[in-house]
């Protein structure tokens, strides 16, 4: 094995998601089994993408083929770095508080509530807005389910012990 280029490109979550679903579709048409370690990691990654608050889990589906270009175009008035654009694409911040985590020194670069709301509404224009209520519900449900599973597992251990 020889690493030719440690990082030849960066991918957005949407591109990875597309690659995985396309690969899944391609494999369903061929016979034979794929390697087990591949199936595990692909399943786990898709689970991650389908968990709230991932935009990939929200309905209507926020991404389409030209979405990245549209986002770049819409955000052109403001001076974002490449990494920030990537995170905006992956996380879809729709509130100034969320944007604040992504953008460094936001108060100095984009001062004032008004400007910040303008930016997040521009993002929402391209990527849509999450259904807040449904998303929060999904998050608490997922957490509850996982907690229950954890408790069940603990009970099993107790019984064994």
């Amino acid at each position, binding site marked *: 094995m020889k690493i030719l280029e440690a990082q030849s490109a960066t991918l957005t979550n949407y591109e990875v998601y597309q*690659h995985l679903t396309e690969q899944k579709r391609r494999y369903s048409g061929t016979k034979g089994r794929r390697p087990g370690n591949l199936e595990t990691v692909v399943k786990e990654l898709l689970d991650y993408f389908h968990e709230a608050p991932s935009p990939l889990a929200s309905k209507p589906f926020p991404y389409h083929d030209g979405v990245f270009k549209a986002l770049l175009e819409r955000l052109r008035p403001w001076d974002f770095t490449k990494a920030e654009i990537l995170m905006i694409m*992956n996380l879809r911040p729709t509130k100034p508080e969320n944007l604040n985590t992504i953008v460094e020194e936001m108060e100095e670069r984009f001062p004032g509530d008004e400007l910040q709301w303008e930016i997040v509404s521009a993002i929402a224009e391209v990527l849509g807005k999450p259904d807040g*209520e449904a998303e929060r519900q999904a998050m608490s449900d997922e957490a509850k389910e996982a907690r229950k599973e*954890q408790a069940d597992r603990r009970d099993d251990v107790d019984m064994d012990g």
Partner: protein
Amino acid sequence: MFILTKIADLVQIIPEDFGKDPAQAIEDNINTKYANKVIQKIGLCICLYDLLSASEGLIGHGSGVVNVNVEFRLVVFRPFKHEVMTGRISSATTTGIRIRTPFFDDIFVPASKLPEGSRFEVSEGLYVWETEGQSLFFDTQETVRFRIEDEVWHDQIPIGPRDKEDAGVVKSSPYQLIATMEDAGLGPCLWWDGDDGEGDEMES
């Protein structure tokens, strides 16, 4: 979160796989070797992205194995420094909080990287953030937002027979991420993503 890494390698196709489409045989071979594995200083490999080139197959002496030199790109999980991600709290101890995602479970937030005023509640086994007279809990399995601060690599060196007898040797994971939840907007998503009424309470 994800990058593409370009790699050159030798793929060996065993005679049992000659019935497969050659491209598929190469792809399966690469995925068997790399998928869900960590390469030091590169990241967690997910799967093959595309095959860039493949040489003629050469049959090895005495084995019947076909050797192909290939160049390809892999999808690799490697969040950059200061990237913001989401995950779920899996456990908490006095040293900090562990976070996991379905595919990667080695993310650690040291107690010093929690918001000021956080303390560990021993009876409940979780952290509490006291702010403006309110107590906010870092419940287990809660979905949280965090920022990557650092990465730790451990080369998996085989344990020698002498060390094996010492029960004290702890096997560390090959790739660990250190994160922070100190800033406004980080921490449980439910704190920040509430509707305007709830969200406003948090603003300082």
